[in-house]
């Protein structure tokens, strides 16, 4: 049983289109994330989200929007896709380290490779 699963694994689309990537975790974690990994392997945090709070990295264009139907799901919707959006998008989840307010181990999904033509 996959802990964090993302679909689709590969996505090829034209500039200007809108697309979504879905993420589900079955670990009972309280926080989920989206990271973007570009061709230089830089892992950039886009969003972190728990039941109470959405934290958006200020550099993320508002064409990107996270949508969470429930605690176990965090989907990523992208409007008006641009060439620069081509990357691997990783979903991750975590819980707090026991007895502290610190973020525990991140469990990553397999990644969704988005190619914008």
């Amino acid at each position, binding site marked *: 049983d996959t802990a964090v699963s993302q679909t689709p694994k590969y996505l090829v689309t034209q500039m200007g289109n809108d697309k979504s990537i879905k993420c589900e975790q079955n670990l009972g974690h309280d926080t989920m994330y989206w990271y973007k990994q570009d061709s230089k392997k830089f892992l950039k945090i886009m969003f*972190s989200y728990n039941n109470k709070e959405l934290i958006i990295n200020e550099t993320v264009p508002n064409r990107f929007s996270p949508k969470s139907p429930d605690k176990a799901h965090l989907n990523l919707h992208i409007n008006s896709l641009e060439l620069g959006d081509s990357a691997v998008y*990783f979903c991750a989840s975590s819980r707090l380290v026991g007895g*502290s307010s610190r*973020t525990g181990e991140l469990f990553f999904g397999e990644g969704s490779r988005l190619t914008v033509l």
Partner: protein
Amino acid sequence: QQPVQSPQAVILREGEDAVINCSSSKALYSVHWYRQKHGEAPVFLMILLKGGEQKGHDKISASFNEKKQQSSLYLTASQLSYSGTYFCGTEMAPSSGSARQLTFGSGTQLTVLP
């Protein structure tokens, strides 16, 4: 605030040692280390929570100097399976407004040759 990792790349022979450094200009709440193999997702290695803390994982260990806002990852007697890109991830204190966000360094590509 992205942590700074060094070196960017390192090539080793099996059995050699390596050190990867991670530093921040801001006070750190915790430091994580992950390894990512080509075409795969990052995988957790360890987390350090307190200043001066050291943790070990097989022949991979790490230290955290809270005062200097630095962490180092030590790989001893490297094996072929250690090859991959190593990332440190840092979390700042809740008072900074950046809580629950793990920000990763640019990565260190480690290649272990036979």
